[in-house]
């Protein structure tokens, strides 16, 4: 039996000590946030936090994680009461299929806990181990910037993606981390 502390709660796990954390989270603890992507530490879909550090749960055996505090996206908040990182991703509409997103959020959470004022370049660098196939990266970067603001409690109003209706002209929206025009939802 292995004892794991996940999202602030201890769990007794009956698993082979070599079992990568990912399978214990998903299969024993029924947590959906960490995803299987490659099993090789190449894509980051399985990223969770251990003692504040982002790790690839698909390659780290549970045996080495005893006595470490593991945090998954479920530990950031709930659908009824989403935490700042989750609210930021919703506001920025920073997901398409969304499969990579929990891993992105956990890697970003680790960064912001280390450096609450991480500049955009650092956010991009931090997220580099994680792959997104829908191409929603710029919204992810922006969501992380937004999360930083929400965590400081000094958040600006949410980006309003209102698009005026104009059959002749164009309406714009730009997505960059420093975008001039919100593309979030109303």
């Amino acid at each position, binding site marked *: 039996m292995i004892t794991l502390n996940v999202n602030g709660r201890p769990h007794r796990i009956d698993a082979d000590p070599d079992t990568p954390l990912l399978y214990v989270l998903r299969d024993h603890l029924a947590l*959906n946030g960490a995803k299987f992507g490659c099993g090789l530490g190449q894509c980051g879909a399985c990223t969770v936090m251990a003692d504040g550090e982002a790790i690839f749960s698909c390659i780290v055996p549970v045996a080495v994680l005893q006595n470490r505090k593991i945090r998954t996206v479920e530990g950031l908040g709930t659908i009824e009461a989403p935490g700042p990182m989750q609210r930021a991703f919703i506001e920025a509409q920073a997901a398409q299929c*969304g499969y990579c997103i929990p891993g992105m959020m956990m890697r970003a959470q680790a960064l912001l806990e280390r450096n609450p004022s991480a500049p955009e370049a650092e956010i991009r660098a931090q*997220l580099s181990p994680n*792959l997104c196939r829908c191409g929603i990266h710029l919204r992810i970067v922006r969501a992380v910037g937004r999360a930083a603001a929400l965590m400081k409690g000094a958040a600006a109003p949410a980006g309003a993606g209102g*698009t005026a209706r104009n059959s002749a002209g164009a309406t*714009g929206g730009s997505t*960059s981390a420093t975008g001039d025009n919100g593309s979030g*939802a109303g």
Partner: protein
Amino acid sequence: MSGMTDLGISRRGFLAGGGALIASFSLSPLSAEKDPSPPATKAPKLPGNLEKQPMLDSWIRIGADGSIMVFTGKAELGQGIKTALLQIAAEQLSVGMERIQLISADTQRTPDEGYTAGSRSLQDSGSAILHAAAQVREMLIDEAATRLNVPRQRLGTERGEVRADDGRRIAYGALVAGRLLQVRAQAQSKLKAPGERSVMGKSVSRVDIPGKVTGGVVYVQDLRLPGMVHARVVRPPRYGARLAQLDAGAAEKMTGVLKIVRDGDYVAVVAGREYQAIQAMRALGDTARWEGGRRLPQQRDLYSTIQRMPAEDTVIADDSSAAAGSGTPPGAGSPVPFAIEAAYHRPYQLHGAIGPSCAVGLLKDGMLTLWTHSQGVYPLRAAIAEMTKMPAERVHCIHMEGSGCYGHNAADDAAADAALIARAFPGRPVRVQWMREEEHAWEPFGPAMVTRARASIDADGGIAAWQYQVWSNAHSTRPAPAGNLMPAWHLRSGFLPPPPRPIPQPEGGGDRNAIPLYKFPKVHVTHHFIPDMPLRVSALRALGAYMNVFSIESFMDELAGAARADPVAYRLRHLEDPRAREVIRITAARFGWQAYRARRGRGRGFAFARYKNLAAYAAIAMEVEVERETGEVRVGRVVAAVDSGEAVNPDGIRSQIEGGIVQSLSWTLFEAVMFDQTRITSRDWSSYPILRFAHLPQSIEVHVIDRPGEPFLGTGEAAQGPAAAALGNAVADATGVRIRELPLNRARVKAAIGI
């Protein structure tokens, strides 16, 4: 990509609301000319997929308690279709989106809408729901008029009630007793006027995102059913290999292993825990001895191999009597040599879902239930029924989201695995997920392609004649039949893939967007359809349009260069369609095309296409910087304009275009499936690199041109071709060297600029 027959019908007549229905045709001019008998006088078609499923209660049901259910045969793939369909229904029914329960893609509950593909969900399902909801609303008003004994002009709808101007109101639930909605749809609907709309056309928060960011049960990968077990499959090392020997003894004794499944060359293992299944699959795989297998072409000779393979040639555009390949421009009497000629090459490319494909199957009481992220639950059901020799009504396919697929990936194959393993292990749900190397090596790739463009320029620099050829495999090998399910190939009574067929114009497959939207005096376009498939291929987002738009738009820049013309002005010179001109004009203006001054090592590129020549218009401009020492291309600012007709969720459109641009940049800068003569060697993300955050553009700006009241134009694939071509054109502008072979990776760019 299915049911092409009614594509040409414009829905403008229906969407206009009142007045006589006119089924106008918006076939591309060329196809229209060639079609000898357009069915202009047929009975009026119903809007969208109401034509296939005309009963209103197939789409909308209202309970006596006021609950509202809307049904769609289309599937959420991460493109946001659920949100857009809810907006449409909520708007026309005058209720909040949260009041509606949307049921999608389920063979026992929803209409059969074929595949969720071809950027057709809003056209097909959105139009159907738009009109069904509007007609339901009118019926509710009629019913209320009778009950309240007031003229219907004095009634309106609000918040799920019909309200009279004297203050009386009746909730929808009280009006729908009996069989009110069991009626056929009409061809015409009284739609809310654009000015009355409050939900459509607004950027609303997507309904699926909160669950995705909080660890909800969102994906089929997350499904946990009581008693569920896990399975993995031992795949052959290469196409066509046969299982000569297998020793299941050791694996059978491993902890948690419940069953080894073998049927011919098909081998799978079932275990209680997922990681036990993986370990047993590996142990079992180690004992397998495989023999033989199909020989693959030499990768370095790929393009010449493709062009030497037997092809079925179709001339898809010919406004002259000239034959293809004559060496003279099409057109009688004036043989001018083609001044300019270029060939372009595209390798095989992956869908590359971040989450490997997955399905859950359960065989119980003679009923096979499959939870799947297939793009087409009904076609999948037919294929599974054929494979398992079960009647289709005993197979139930339920869509759940998977990781983004971007076309026909391994989703259906994983469902076939779940069916086969569940059949061998009945009574308990079986979850099977693919491993990364299976997904890379066995998914059907986007086909390698070769294109060749030739043109002559007149004395004024205009394009006088245009000839274009495209060589390609099939772009759809979807199930059904069962032979298109890869696991079925390996069964003892194995299924063979059927002969592939090209997708006809106007949508096209390999020849999608091969006919330029530009107006040239002489145009000749040939599609060389290659039936033999050395590597497994099928539909990858945008199909042939990605390569054809890359080729055509690269060539337009080459011709503009020869004519010493500005690339944007040169495009406008050859383009009549006012909406095409508008997206180009807006993109150029917002990018600052005129005022642009390149710094050293930098360049700008522009490209345009109307997807399939009948869906959304998109124009893209971007700046790149090329590091001469390494050949690395860095993308700076990207500006796009898109015209999707009536914009239901403008932010959803922006998201699709942004994502499409970044994904296309990934394909175009990095991606090529690698193989040797025995096997696929791209088996993970290091042997098939894709774009990472370090390679992101600096910014992407998307301008949505909303046209309320106009038909929906599919948008999900509109950016793929223009983004690739804008990048290629920008690299050419920055370096002075035109690169015509994809991808534009560092090695190729460095070699091309000769440092």
